[in-house]
């Protein structure tokens, strides 16, 4: 008791620990939802008393009532989806399928550790992942144990890593995760790992399967062409990292030397440059598998052994040398010359000038090919802009040859059976707005399989177009459908209603709206884009004598003529009845760099392919208004507007968000509800949107968690699952995630809208219902501009219709389950390099006809599958477009994407009638998101955890003098509340619903610590005081005169 020094010290220790506990408590509660996501807890839940009408309470019904059902449901769909996402690129002499019990030898580091999914964003769940060798063995393949042992030895001391974002385990090894090195093992290295690696070749010789792969995912630095893209010592076939390295080729040569049958699996989502494999007669089969997901190698095995016939088609163009695409001329880090003049928080780094215009992917290759065939020029090519026959870069001026450029065209894909398609009829409506196309597909082979109906069109390229710089692709996808599984001899006829708005061209110079030229038009079917174009060329009278790569079939093309003047009326009004006119060609929100720096860029034109081939636009400096806009602080707030008529914080109404469940956007009660919300409540909501829907107490909106991403929840597990608000009884047994399917790009390659719809229902929709995540951030719908971006796997395709209709299907499926989707990213997130802050420039025609056309399909609920049209049960589908979107990190033109009024307001809110939730990417409330400008442009929330200190106006006081921003806040409240009221956020809600805090383990821990250390501090002080008092008394009594005596007492 008298050891006062001990109590004194303990009091100090306890006070330190008390402080730490208070800090921990404060931080944990501030970031509660993130903590929940990270450690798998549920710190808040809603409690709803029973209602008279349960059906009204549970608007959206999960089909999974137990964790087991959920686990099995996600798994079943993942496997079934995967089977349709593998594109057979080569199959000589029916090398495939293999027998179900084939004895195979697997080559390549990726044959043991394939790329299951993205390295970041939409990552696969390592806990669920069934490894390639286990999946193959389970399906009956017998794998060469000696070769497998070598790879096992290599990975014996290595472990799977953790995802860059989200939680859990990523089924990937850090040691072989690289953008500039395939990390393949040499034969010598294999011999060191297992000297007998090759001893069983003879007994496992039904086939050699070589797996080659490249990683991809969010946040990657990306692939670079040429030497810059290769690590030291890495040499490749074309000189680019997307072709095969010497080490990979050595394995292929080893396989060819020892096996009669060599099959190559391409485990990459970036288009690989594999012309040498296509040309090699000793390579029997090539199967593109992309990123199959956690269970996807079951599907690969099912395709290899013929359980299912492959039915995927490429959604991107495979070039011999993708680095020669015109889009690649301006790619990567091209900094502003005066980037250093800007504050760091403005996030001004580089720019991207997309001088290729509309000519990305097949639009470039097929159009240049068509022009050469038609004698319109385009054959002459300057050194460095075209490919040699072997895919290397031509170093002298010469002739551009389609056959030297392309390996597999967009839409290409083989099957184990053969199909015959006939173009039965085409009817163009008198208003020009729709076309009805009927196609019959017959299985003419001897194996069951699914076929894809691809419908393309061609619009004329006229003198008007040349005069006003309107470009036309010689062929463009209009719509697609996938057949049912057709037995041999079986036929299916599909009738498609084609939206002809997608054939209109945007003329920013003269008409300043969409136009339709007079002239000859063509609609054609084809096995791929090149085949369809050849059919059109055949209908135009061209043959191989004109330079065509193959004869076309004119019967598969339909021609019609539109006479008269250029039609600038038919497609000048959107489906929402809003006039369409320039939004991105001039003014502050222009995307055309020429609007700021006149005559800077020449856009690629088919009127002079070689002369307008893009140059690299480097060394630009931003001055004047351009610099002001880049600063992201370009609209001054008023401080003295008359805002007396604007009502915030009204307390006279009893209306709550619960009352608005399912309400229309035009419901008059919204005004009454919104008047209850204070400015500060909106600001608090808007600034706490990192995987979170913040509460708005005045209207009874409860707080919810949200999560990324397009392929299922990145952070949550079935252990948190519930049905009707009651946790699964068997939850503890299912520590698995919902992100188990093949990557989104694979899904697009299925060309199956119904399957995409189902993926929306399950992958996003059931993630919402099972894990109580009203917002799922996805799908990703940016266009693939070229082959080298690292994040293509999370997006769908190079084509806006394939992207748009697959995305639309996913969204419709997800929204049928109440998911508030966040399409990402609006817009133009065209590369990961400098993605935060990069200023993306292009002309308005490109913007509208590629990226925005893809997004438009989702916002307008377009692309309804033909099979849904006459299905009564699907009558309610495709009636509401996407209700949520996430803007992009990049700038659109000069300003933050969320602040670009041209895209966010004029086009999205106006033309597309988008009335939903619009959140920034992970910016927080910071200058890089231009917060006040973004609120004015319809941003409803800022994903992030913080308010940057330099945003000094982020308060009720700071904004209350500006009428425009207060009105924008009211509009934004309307948008976000409407979206939430029509989502699963209202699921299980009735008038009794309230949220309650849950005593999670971390909450108990920090509270207990606070209690213990508070008591410890107080107790120590008390005992110190008592000790002093006793000693003082003792001293006064003279009984304490020695240390010894004192201690004894």
């Amino acid at each position, binding site marked *: 008791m008298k050891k006062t020094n001990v109590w004194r*010290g303990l009091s100090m220790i306890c006070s330190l620990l008390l402080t730490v506990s208070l800090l921990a408590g404060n931080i944990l509660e501030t*970031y509660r939802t993130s903590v929940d996501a990270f450690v798998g807890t549920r710190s808040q839940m809603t409690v709803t008393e029973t209602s008279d009408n349960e059906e009204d309470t549970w608007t959206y019904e999960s089909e999974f009532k137990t964790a087991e059902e959920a686990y099995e449901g996600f798994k079943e769909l993942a496997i079934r989806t995967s089977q349709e996402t593998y594109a057979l690129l080569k199959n000589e002499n029916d090398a495939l399928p293999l027998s179900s019990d084939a004895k195979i030898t697997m080559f390549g580091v990726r044959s043991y550790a394939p790329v299951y999914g993205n390295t970041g964003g939409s990552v696969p769940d390592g806990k669920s992942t069934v490894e390639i060798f286990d999946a193959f063995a389970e399906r009956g393949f017998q794998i060469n144990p000696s070769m497998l042992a070598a790879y096992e030895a290599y990975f014996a001391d290595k472990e799977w890593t953790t995802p860059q974002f989200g939680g859990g385990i990523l089924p990937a090894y850090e040691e072989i995760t690289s953008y500039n090195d395939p990390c393949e093992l040499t034969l010598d290295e294999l011999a060191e790992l297992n000297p007998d690696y090759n001893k069983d070749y003879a007994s496992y010789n039904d086939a050699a399967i070589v797996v080659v792969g490249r990683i991809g995912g*969010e946040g990657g630095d990306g692939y670079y062409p040429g030497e810059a893209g290769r690590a030291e010592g890495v040499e490749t076939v074309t000189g680019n990292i997307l072709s095969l390295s010497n080490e990979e080729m050595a394995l292929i040569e080893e396989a060819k030397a020892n096996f009669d049958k060599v099959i190559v699996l391409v485990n990459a989502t970036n288009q690989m440059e594999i012309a040498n494999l296509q040309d090699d007669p000793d390579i029997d089969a090539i199967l593109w598998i992309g990123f199959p997901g956690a269970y996807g190698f079951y599907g690969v095995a099912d395709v290899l052994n013929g359980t299912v016939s492959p039915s995927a088609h490429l959604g991107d163009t495979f070039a011999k040398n993708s680095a020669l695409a015109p889009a690649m001329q301006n790619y990567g880090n091209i900094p502003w010359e005066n980037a250093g003049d800007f504050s760091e928080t403005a996030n001004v780094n580089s720019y991207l000038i997309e001088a290729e215009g509309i000519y990305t992917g097949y639009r470039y290759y097929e159009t240049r090919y068509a022009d050469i065939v038609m004698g319109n020029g385009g054959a002459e090519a300057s050194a460095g802009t075209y490919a040699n026959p072997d895919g290397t870069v031509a170093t002298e001026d010469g002739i551009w040859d389609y056959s030297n450029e392309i390996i597999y065209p967009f839409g290409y894909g083989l099957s184990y059976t053969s199909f015959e398609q006939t173009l039965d009829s085409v009817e163009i409506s008198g208003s020009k707005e729709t076309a009805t196309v009927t196609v019959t597909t017959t299985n003419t082979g001897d194996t069951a399989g699914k076929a894809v109906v691809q419908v393309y069109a061609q619009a004329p390229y006229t003198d008007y177009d040349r005069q006003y710089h309107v470009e036309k692709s010689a062929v463009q996808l209009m719509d697609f459908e996938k057949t049912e599984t057709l037995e041999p001899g079986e036929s299916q006829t599909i009738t498609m209603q084609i939206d002809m708005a997608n054939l209109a061209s945007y003329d920013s110079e003269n008409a300043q709206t969409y136009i339709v030229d007079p002239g000859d038009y063509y609609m054609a079917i084809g096995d791929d884009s090149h085949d369809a174009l050849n059919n059109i060329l055949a209908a135009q009278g061209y043959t191989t004598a004109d330079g065509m790569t193959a004869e076309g079939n004119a019967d598969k093309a339909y021609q019609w003529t539109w006479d008269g003047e250029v039609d600038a009326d038919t497609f000048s009004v959107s489906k929402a009845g809003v006039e369409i006119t320039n939004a991105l060609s001039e003014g502050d929100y222009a995307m055309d760099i020429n609007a700021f720096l006149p005559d800077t860029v020449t856009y690629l034109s088919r009127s002079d392919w070689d002369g307008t081939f893009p140059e690299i636009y480097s060394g630009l400096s931003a001055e004047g208004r351009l610099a002001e806009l880049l600063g992201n602080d370009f609209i001054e707030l008023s401080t003295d507007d008359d805002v007396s008529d604007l009502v915030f914080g009204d307390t006279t109404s009893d209306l709550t968000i619960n009352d608005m469940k399912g309400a229309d956007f035009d419901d008059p009660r919204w005004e009454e509800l919104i008047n209850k919300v204070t400015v500060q409540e909106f600001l608090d909501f808007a600034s706490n949107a990192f995987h979170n829907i913040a509460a708005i107490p005045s209207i009874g909106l409860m707080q919810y968690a949200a999560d990324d991403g397009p392929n299922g929840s990145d952070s949550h597990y079935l252990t948190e699952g519930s049905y009707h608000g009651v946790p699964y009884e068997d939850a503890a047994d299912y520590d698995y995630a919902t992100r188990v399917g093949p990557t989104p790009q694979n899904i697009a390659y299925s060309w199956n809208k119904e399957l995409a719809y189902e993926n929306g229902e399950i992958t996003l929709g059931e993630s919402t219902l099972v894990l109580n995540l009203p917002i799922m951030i996805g799908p990703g719908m940016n266009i693939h501009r070229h082959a080298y971006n690292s994040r293509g796997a999370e997006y769908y395709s190079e084509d806006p219709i394939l992207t748009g209709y697959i995305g639309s299907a996913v969204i419709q499926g997800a929204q049928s389950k109440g998911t508030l989707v966040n399409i990402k990213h609006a817009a133009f997130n065209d590369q990961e390099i400098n993605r935060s802050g990069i200023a993306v420039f292009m002309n308005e025609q490109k913007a509208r006809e590629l990226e925005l056309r893809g997004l438009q399909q989702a916002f307008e609920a377009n692309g309804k599958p033909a099979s849904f049209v006459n299905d009564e049960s699907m009558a309610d589908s495709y009636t509401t477009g996407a209700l949520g979107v996430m803007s992009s990190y990049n700038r659109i033109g000069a300003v933050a994407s969320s602040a670009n009024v041209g895209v966010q307001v004029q086009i999205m809110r106006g033309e597309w009638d988008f009335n939903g939730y619009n959140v920034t990417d992970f910016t927080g409330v910071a200058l890089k998101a231009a917060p006040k400008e973004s609120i004015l442009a319809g941003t409803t929330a800022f994903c992030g*955890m913080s308010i940057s200190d330099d945003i000094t106006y982020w308060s009720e006081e700071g904004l209350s003098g500006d009428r425009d921003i207060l009105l924008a806040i009211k509009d934004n409240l309307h948008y976000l509340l409407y979206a939430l009221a029509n989502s699963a956020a209202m699921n299980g809600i009735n008038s009794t619903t309230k949220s309650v805090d849950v005593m999670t383990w971390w909450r108990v821990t920090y509270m207990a610590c606070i209690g213990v250390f508070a008591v410890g501090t107080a107790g120590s002080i008390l005992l*110190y005081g008592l000790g002093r008092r006793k*000693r003082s008394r003792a001293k006064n009594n003279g009984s304490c005169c020695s*240390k010894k005596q004192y201690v004894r007492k």
Partner: protein
Amino acid sequence: MKNRVEKNAYGVLLAALAALAGLIIYIYTSVTGYLASSAVNYLPFISTAAAVILMLAVVFMRGKISDLAADIIIFVAGVLILFGLYEFVLGRVSLAADVYFIPVNYPASEAEALHISIAGVVLYIVSDILLIVTAFMKRTEETE
């Protein structure tokens, strides 16, 4: 005896210097770099400055004030240091959230501000630990 008192005083002096260094870092990171344009929270400044003054008072007035008074002053100084630490950390949590959890290229100056701040926080903790150590050391009357 004198040696023990001197050690005690040195401990408090070192604690004061550590707190002062932590405070300088707090001020530096608040008025320069990433946070230069943000409003400065003066509470850590006030509390830490007061703590340093109290600790220096104890050091330079040793022998002139009672052990009880010295204990109270040091305890109060410790509480003030912890309060400063609390405010300091809370003011930098958003930087840590940005730097460690936002998956994009945050400004380098933000990471710099955070990492320098971490050094400052460490100095605050060192200061408090030194006070804890001196608290466990016996005073004059406790060794009589």
